[in-house]
């Protein structure tokens, strides 16, 4: 986290976490839609019979994709909660540091030396540890977002394949095409949310 010792940094970090969390909510909502749509698509493929077997298989895969995505989002959300805890500690530490600094400026003689010793030992241990923890959490978040991007890429491929399969759906081709276009549209929304999420995640490192 850039300049995590400052309270400005902590506030910025919290706002960043909220932006990430709002994107997570959008993805979860889209994943839920895909799950429902895929369920309907499976019934539709069953009605279409032999000519929509491939479409049925892909719909099943899209349902699995939606479940995996929801699970991945839950893990991401837990990771952001972990970040909130760490930021809370950072804010408390930064407040103590500010007060100690003021005490150092105002203190004289023995008191000044004691405060200086205390501030030095805090700088060397607590703050460094918190910074490391924050950096580790951020690295974990970045990896998880990258994993999610791969998963969404798979969803995108499935949606495109469903569109191709829809063309072989005989009398049901029009309905299947409509469903596969809806899949594609929702996955496009997920990709956009994920792009924003990635942007928010990297904001901190650029700040």
């Amino acid at each position: 986290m850039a300049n995590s010792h400052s309270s400005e940094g902590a506030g910025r970090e919290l706002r960043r976490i909220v932006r990430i969390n709002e994107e997570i909510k959008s993805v979860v909502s889209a994943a839920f839609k895909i799950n429902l749509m895929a369920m309907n698509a499976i019934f539709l493929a069953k009605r279409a019979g032999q000519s929509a077997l491939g479409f049925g298989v892909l719909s099943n895969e899209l349902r699995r994709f939606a479940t995996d995505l929801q699970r991945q989002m839950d893990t991401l959300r837990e990771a952001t909660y972990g970040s909130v805890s760490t930021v809370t500690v950072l804010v408390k530490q930064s407040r103590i540091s500010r007060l100690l600094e003021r005490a150092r400026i105002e203190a004289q003689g023995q008191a000044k030396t004691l405060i200086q010793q205390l501030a030095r030992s805090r700088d060397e241990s607590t703050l460094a540890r918190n910074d490391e923890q924050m950096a580790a959490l951020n690295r974990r978040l970045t990896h998880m977002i990258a994993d999610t991007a791969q998963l969404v890429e798979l969803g995108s491929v499935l949606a495109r394949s469903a569109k191709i399969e829809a063309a072989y759906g005989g009398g049901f081709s029009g309905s299947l095409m409509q469903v596969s276009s809806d899949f594609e549209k929702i996955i496009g929304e997920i990709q956009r949310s994920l792009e924003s999420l990635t942007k928010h995640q990297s904001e901190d490192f650029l700040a």
Partner: protein
Amino acid sequence: MKIARVIYEDGDHKWFALARDTSRPDFLIDTNEYLVTSDGDAMLLDPGGSEIFPAVFSAVSTGFDPRRIHKIFASHQDPDVISSLPMWLEFNPGIKCYLSWLWQGFVPHFAGNADTFVAIPDNGMEILVGSRRLQAIPAHYLHSSGNFHLYDPKAKVLFSGDVGAALLPAAEDGLFVEDFDRHIRHAEGFHRRWMGSDKAKRDWCARVSALEIDMLCPQHGAIYRGADVRRFIDWFSRLDVGVLKS
């Protein structure tokens, strides 16, 4: 872990309860936080201590965008009520904190500056949240000498701070009071010891008896609803308070 549960909903006008956190450390008293939302605006009631900020912040974020929280209501000055203020101000320095004028010079020791606080006069005031006009109801000496509750006339919900609080065993973690007689045993010792003034108690009982209340939401323990609200007010009015031991 705290969970935000909707206890009242009419379109965008909602009350969320962030109550009964069973995963908190044992050495901290359990607290309930409430969030009132209306037309894109939101007020957090008794946001809690700094130790539970991560749990409250995360729980709020699951059901609501915390960037829309523009106001904080502090029933009184206790650390379990408002010591998380520094965190909320880090997140949004523009948040306004409504609290008794009596604590205006004390609570800034936690955080904030002259612009942060909106002083509530002794006789209370209206607080606008979105299009909803909420009322700060005087509850002085129950237990704090500068103490307010918050009433929502549309939702018929009264946030009652420490009044109605119960220190419940971990196993009794329901959101609402289900068995009043059983529940109130866990509230008795607390009210006898913490509520210091019989006169203040009687004043409060008379004041809230004039309000239409469907839910009475304390800062600790379960929420009273329906007939249990009246039962609680009657029970409290008869209770001998301001005593060290019963």
